[in-house]
């Protein structure tokens, strides 16, 4: 039974959006996941949800970085809603890159996020890209 006490919650105006772009390198993933966890904490997600989102972003970014074109970027956008954060993580890839969904990593994503999907497609003048979209709710759905 969620209590309505908006005055004491640190939540900010709805649908705040944050975008970060880094080189697609594993060494920069801790920065991205720290942003994810900070946004969730400030949006007053419960502790399980904060930690789940942090690990999900870590997993998604690590997967994508492994498939990214050398020298390319990792782009992550976070849309913070009242009770949900939507994440899109994207890298440019080679033409035939696919993201296996019969892997343990995918199961990790499915468990940690409330919803997860992968998109392939061209961006920026036809360059192939992979995008992982995931949603995380602020707490257990009641």
């Amino acid at each position: 039974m969620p209590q309505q006490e908006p005055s004491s919650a640190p939540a900010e105006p709805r649908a705040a959006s944050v975008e970060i772009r880094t080189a697609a390198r594993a060494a920069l993933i801790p920065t991205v996941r720290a942003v994810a966890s900070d946004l969730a904490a400030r949006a007053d997600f419960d502790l399980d949800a904060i930690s789940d989102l942090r690990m999900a972003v870590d997993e998604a970014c690590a997967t994508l970085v492994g498939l990214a074109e050398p020298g390319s970027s990792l782009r992550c956008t976070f849309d913070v809603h009242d009770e949900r954060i939507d994440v899109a993580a994207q890298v440019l890839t080679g033409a035939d890159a696919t993201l296996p969904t019969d892997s343990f990593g995918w199961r990790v994503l499915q468990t940690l996020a409330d919803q997860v999907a992968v998109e392939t497609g061209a961006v920026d003048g036809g360059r192939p890209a992979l995008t992982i979209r995931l949603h995380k709710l602020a707490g257990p759905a009641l």
Partner: protein
Amino acid sequence: MTADPEYAHLTPLLEEYSGLEPDDPRREELRDRLVTGYLPVAQHIARRFNHRGEPLDDLVQVATVGLINAIDRFDPGKGGEFFSFAVPTISGEVRRHFRDQSWSMRVPRRLKDMHVSINGAVSELSQTLGRSPKPSEIARHLDLPVNEVLEGLEAAEAYRSSSLDEMLSSEDGSATVGELVGDADAELDRVDYRESLRPLLAELAPRERTIVMLRFFGNRTQTQIASEVGISQMHVSRLLAQTLTRLRDRLDPGERAL
């Protein structure tokens, strides 16, 4: 430190002690006398580590543990001076204490205390709410501004406080690994991954393996796992993240070398 006349009378006791059978009734009394006799050495070493954020009393205690280890392990038959064996043994014990408590050297006392209060609040609130609490709920419970709670949570994330978590974890009520992961094991059997996960899971320490199994194959939340395994939610969170990273590196070592 070289042989000191102040301790000369202890040398024959050391020799006698090391010659005793493990179950000799005189051992305990002899050891007490040796510990008391050499205690100034342990105190001296403890004081060298003072003012680094740990109370001197704790340091003396840790140094004394080091001293006892040194007394137990010293073998006069191998030659050599007790001091040249004991001093590194005692300092090593104190250094290990700092390493285990590593965050206490760098984190302000205020944040450390906050971590303890937050952990307590999380476990109380989790029980009453039936889920993990939100930062605002922790703040209300502790009568603190939300910003301070956020700062405390961030510090807990930044500084690996695993030894503190260990201290706060209760051993009561922790079920055994086998009891907990039965269903999860069956679920793992039903899935077939490209990677062979099972041998890697088998390499994990039992507790890490239990936590991963319960989260990803047993459909449990971190808070549920915390209460079943008998450790804090924050500790579960940290162990899960560490274990996932390790598994990922092992599953796909080639691509992660970037």
